[in-house]
């Protein structure tokens, strides 16, 4: 999987909201859940949950399948892994740069 800028950007933007992070945690614990079930467990309306799920879905972090009149959602871990790997690469570049700064300053 190629991690494009857009994917990283969308994942980080989706995760920037604390309620969406709670939602994702909750969904991960449930395995699968509908917006109604999620709204019962969180202090926001079902309508707000649906909006947050749409943002998470655009970022590829959740996927929904229709079941009767409601959608059942589950977590898709791939974009998280890809984003974590990308952020981790950026972080290790700083590790390498700080090592170089240290070497130069101490010489």
């Amino acid at each position, binding site marked *: 999987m190629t991690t494009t800028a*857009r994917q990283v950007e969308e994942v980080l933007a989706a995760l920037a909201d604390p309620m969406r992070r709670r939602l994702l*945690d909750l969904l991960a614990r449930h395995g699968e859940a509908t917006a109604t079930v999620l709204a019962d467990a969180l202090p926001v309306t079902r309508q707000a949950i649906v909006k947050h799920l749409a943002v998470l879905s655009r970022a590829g972090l959740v996927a929904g399948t229709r079941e009767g009149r409601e959608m059942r959602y589950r977590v898709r871990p791939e974009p998280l892994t890809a984003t974590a790997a990308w952020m*981790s690469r950026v972080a290790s570049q700083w590790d390498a740069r700080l090592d170089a700064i240290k070497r130069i300053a101490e010489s």
Partner: protein
Amino acid sequence: MTDDRIERETTINAPIERVWAVLTEPDLLSQWFSTGKRAEVDLRPGGIIRLNHGENFDYPTRIVRVEPPTHLSYRWASAFPGTDATEDNSTLVEFTLEAVADGTLLRVVESGFAAIDVPADMEYRAGYESHTHGWPEVLDAMRKVAAG
């Protein structure tokens, strides 16, 4: 779970002025961060630090804050070589220096990844080098969610 920022720090066995020089003096800066061509530095808020990472990787970073010898920050459009850094295309890189018993504590924070507005057909060039170290807190948190 995640934050839109990377924080790293190291303790350097050298005086704070020496570390400041490594961050801001063209000859020293070129030894670690502008390894292509010698860096050009216009050290004032709004000034440009021109970094070159070799080949066509030319980065005119825009200085935000300069407070010798404790604080330096600039915007860096690491995904868009050759482009002037603006709020929409760059991350904020902040260096904080603190004199400690062993020398100098140097901290770097790079933030604002989520705010970058990237054309759909463009691949990030930032992160093109690969290393094996991790970003433990975020990775752990993400793994926890990923594992359900």
